[in-house]
Every structure is written in structure tokens, then in C-alpha cells.
């Protein structure tokens, strides 16, 4: 599920145009040009991994947090098993209250899968549904400890 808006097609065309220019100018002024054009696009995100370690990373506007983890090949065990199709809860992340409030309403489908997430909080989201925008520059995203099924594993014993 992509959250790229319709006018991002225009942005992509513009990007491609700029990219072609870049290739030419890069010849002459490589580093400076690249950072000038691309710095506007990137959003910096800090992940706190399950072991408490902080990972600093950045990715293009419009990418979801899952896209970011995949693109940057971050070492987060078992993240995004269903590849962003709302069929699991392995990309469960915890956000700051302010950031959580900034984001749009959550669909039933996302809430249904969040219900299965271990350690669900009031500021939990599925990473595959959180798309990066300039407003989210510099946010901290916490990856909680382990996913789990909401049903207890000892609920299967024969009773009656």
C-alpha cells in the first residue's frame, strides 16, 4: 500500500529531469550538486532497536518506515514479514505521543493487525503504514520487544 500522493508523479518527473542534469554537472561539481538537490528530499529518522541501540538513518520523503528499514538493510530481526500488506504485525513501532498525534487516522485493517502486536501501546503504529514527510524529520521510532499472538499458547489444552 503506497501513500505517495497523486502529485508525486509530477515530483518524480521533476526528479528525473534534475537527475539528468545532475549526471552532466556531476562531472564537474559532483558532491556539491548532489547534496544540494537531494538534501531537500531526505528525512532523518532515529530507530531505537530492541537491544536499545540507536540507529540513525534517512530516506526519501514518501517512503514508509518499513521501506526505510528494507532499503537501508537495518538489522531489525523479523521486521516486515508480510512486506507491507497488512497481514502481520512484525513492523510494529512505538512513536512519541506528539508524532503519533500528527499522523492521520488509522484504518480498521491496520488496527486489526495492531491488535496482534506484542507490547501494544497507545502510540503504536505499523511501520509499513507510516509514511515519511518533512513533518516527520528527526523523529525517534522505537522497535518494541518481539511480536506475539494475542491468544495465550496454553489456551489449547483439552478442557471439556
Amino acid at each position: 500500500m503506497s501513500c505517495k500522493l497523486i502529485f508525486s508523479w509530477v515530483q518524480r518527473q521533476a526528479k528525473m529531469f534534475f537527475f539528468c542534469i545532475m549526471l552532466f554537472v556531476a562531472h564537474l561539481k559532483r558532491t556539491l550538486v548532489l547534496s544540494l538537490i537531494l538534501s531537500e528530499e531526505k528525512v532523518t529518522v532515529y530507530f531505537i532497536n530492541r537491544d536499545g541501540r540507536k540507529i540513525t538513518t534517512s530516506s526519501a520523503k514518501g517512503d514508509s518506515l518499513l521501506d526505510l528499514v528494507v532499503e537501508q538493510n537495518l538489522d531489525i530481526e523479523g521486521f516486515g514479514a508480510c512486506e507491507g500488506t497488512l497481514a502481520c504485525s512484525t513492523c510494529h513501532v512505538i512513536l512519541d505521543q506528539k508524532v503519533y498525534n500528527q499522523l492521520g487516522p488509522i484504518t480498521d485493517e491496520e488496527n486489526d493487525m495492531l491488535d496482534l502486536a506484542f507490547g501494544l501501546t497507545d502510540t503504536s503504529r505499523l511501520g509499513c503504514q507510516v509514511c515519511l514527510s518533512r513533518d516527520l524529520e528527526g523523529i525517534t521510532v522505537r522497535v518494541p520487544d518481539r511480536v506475539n499472538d494475542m491468544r495465550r499458547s496454553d489456551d489449547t489444552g483439552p478442557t471439556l
Partner: protein
Amino acid sequence: MGKLPRPESVDIYERLPVPFGLVRFGVAPDHPEVKNVINTFTQTAQHARCSFHGNVRVGKDVTVEELQEAYHAVVLSYGAEGNRTMGVPGEDLAGVYSAKDFVGWYNGLPRNSELRPDLSCETAVILGQGNVALDVARILLSPVDILKKTDITQHALDALAESSVRRVLIVGRRGPLQVACTIKELREMVNLPGTRPEMEASEFEGIAETLKSLARPRKRLTELLLKAAIETPGEEELERRNRAERAWGFRFLRKPLEVLPSTDLIRAAGIRLAVNRLEGDGEGVRAVATGEVEDVECGLVISSIGYKSLLIDPAVPFDARKAIIPNTMGRVQQTAGLYCSGWVKRGPTGVIATTMNDSFDTARTLLQDIGKGTLDVSTVKPGSQGVSALLEKRGVKPVSFSDWEKIDSEETRRGEIKGKPREKMLDVGEMLQVARA
């Protein structure tokens, strides 16, 4: 995995020529996104230090002891291929199936290819209210136009197209607050085109009052259940329900006593249910018989009351009561170098992510044991070369991962012709033929 030791090689032995187990044979055909994990599994299998050996029956073609001689560590993660039986008279009548077999039938498990379930009756009763029960109900009632675009097997599709089943009851021993299914699956039933919910309001007495004390997942699930079961629908929904030709519903506090036979005593014609009441509350709620009994007319009975692990090899410790391999954090008791993970370790519940995490746990335990020296890896072991020699002597020819990829391509090709993601092969002989081509 950070600073844990890295094994030289990890070999996977699988009985069938095809990998992925329940992801291929258990996940419903209309849940293709759930199967995306296959991509992760494929990456792992294609890793230079990993190799897949299909068509090898551990316990028959090679024993667990022989594997232990060949490898420093053996991990048993063979799941639960048996099922809990109802243990009632009439369970062997025609028209009575375990959900395991019914699911295996529509998902192309070779051993269930000849099931030929009789779908000529109007009412089907499913015992159990977990996600598997809901999958079965949904497949029985889904419009064929939806199913025909999935990887459901052709023979199941044909049978469902001719099916007379119009009403499915999903029966559980306890109450609405104890349903084991999750909300995604319930929502799919509520939204299933051409169907309407039909439930008894009396079975939901007192439930609405409990909502505020429930944890979020149970609360949302119960809210949706109440909405479907007893809330007066809006005009649009009312019209939709009136047009619906198929119905489904939960029935609570009912336990099977007997499957009632037809007059010719060959097939199921009904089911006799004991009526329960609940005692206790919270996690300690128990169902207790009231003495009352109820008969429901039906021609199809599917018991979905749980899978069960089986013994793979007499040399492996097995707890027959719990139907799991006795273990501590994945280390099989009393047997050095033997580990277990997944359903055979914890019992047959949990979604893919649960089992995946459990496997990570076992792997971590194993690697820590190597790191600490409790698992001795100093001796040289023959690994797959040792096992291959034994298999060759016994006339067993393993299927490699790239052999599987030939089967995969062929199934995909056959599916494409019909507008399906794949058409699964149902016969092991055919799989082997394609694998060796």
C-alpha cells in the same frame, strides 16, 4: 544475530519435494499476502551456506540418530500433522472431516487430494471457532468468482462451484468472549459478499456490559461480533442481507456428543450437541454441561479443534499427553545436540510471526550453546555428504531447492493460463518428474 557463532552449513530436510509447509498448505488461498514470507524463506534457502533436501522422510529414509551422527546439531521443526479428534460416535461417517484434511484438500496437500468431500447438503457445522474454522467457513461460502483467481486447487474450485452448502454454523464449547479467532478473519466473514450473519441474540446476553473491562484486542473483536450478531443493521446493510443467499453464524456453549447418521447409516445427517454453561470468570472460565441436548440437521461436519504433533522417530523424547517434544527453551530434554522449534515445541497455536520468533529463540539457544561450549563442535562431522551416502544406498533421491524452483515455475505457468497465481501439483510423483526434468 550479532556476536553469535556462524555455522558452516545449515541443511533442511523435508518430507515433500516442495518446501514451506503450512505457508503453502495451511494459509487460505484468499490470503496471498500472508504468503509473502515465502520470499524471506527463499532468500534463506538460497544462501550459500544453506541447502534444502526435499523428498526425504526423516524417521524412515534416515533416522534422527543418523542425522545426529552426521551433524553437530539437529533441530526438529516438523510441526503438527495430526489433529485432535472429537472422540464421539459417528466421527467416521461419510461427510465428517477434520479441518486439517479439508484445508489440505483445497490447498493441494497430496495426501488429501482424494478427499472428495460431499458438498451436496444445505447446512455445514464446523466445530471450533479459531482462525482455521473461519477459513473453512469462508472458503465454503465465498463466491466462486473470488476463489477462481486464487491458488485454490482446481478440483476444490470445481466442487465448490457445484456446492449446495448455504448455511455454515461455527460451533464452540464456550461463550462469545472465548472465541479464538482474530478480528481480521471475523471482519472478512462480516464483509463476505452474498452472505449474511445469523446468530441468536440470547447467546450474547451480558456481553455488551463486559466491553469496558476488556483489553483492546478482545474488546474490538467482541464489538465487531456484537455488531454482526445483534445490532440492527442500517438500511443499506439490511437490503444487502435480504439479498444474500448464504448465511453463517457462531453458536456458543455447544459441545459435540454424537454425529447422527442418515437412515442408510452411511453418512452424517445431523449432529447432537450438549448445551453448556460457563463457570468462573476471566481466564479461568470453564464450560460445564447442563444436561440439555440439541440436535442440528446437517450433512457436512468439520472438526476444527486443533492440530496435534506426532512422533517422528522412537529415539526422540515425546510427551504424548501434550503432544510436544519435551524441551527447555528449545533444547530437547535428555538429548545433547537435539533441539526443537515451532509447533512441535510449543503446541499448535500462533500465527506465522509467533512461530517465526520461536524459531529465532531456538536458533539463539543453539548458537549460545556453541558459544559456551555446551554443544561440542570440535569433531569433524560429515554433514550432508554423510546423509547423501545413506540416502543413495536406500534409493532415495533428494530434491534440491533449484529442483523445487522448476516445480515452482511449472505450477506458476499452469496457473497463468487460468488467471491464477499457480496451479499446484497434487501428486508427489508428478512433482518428482518435473524436479528431475
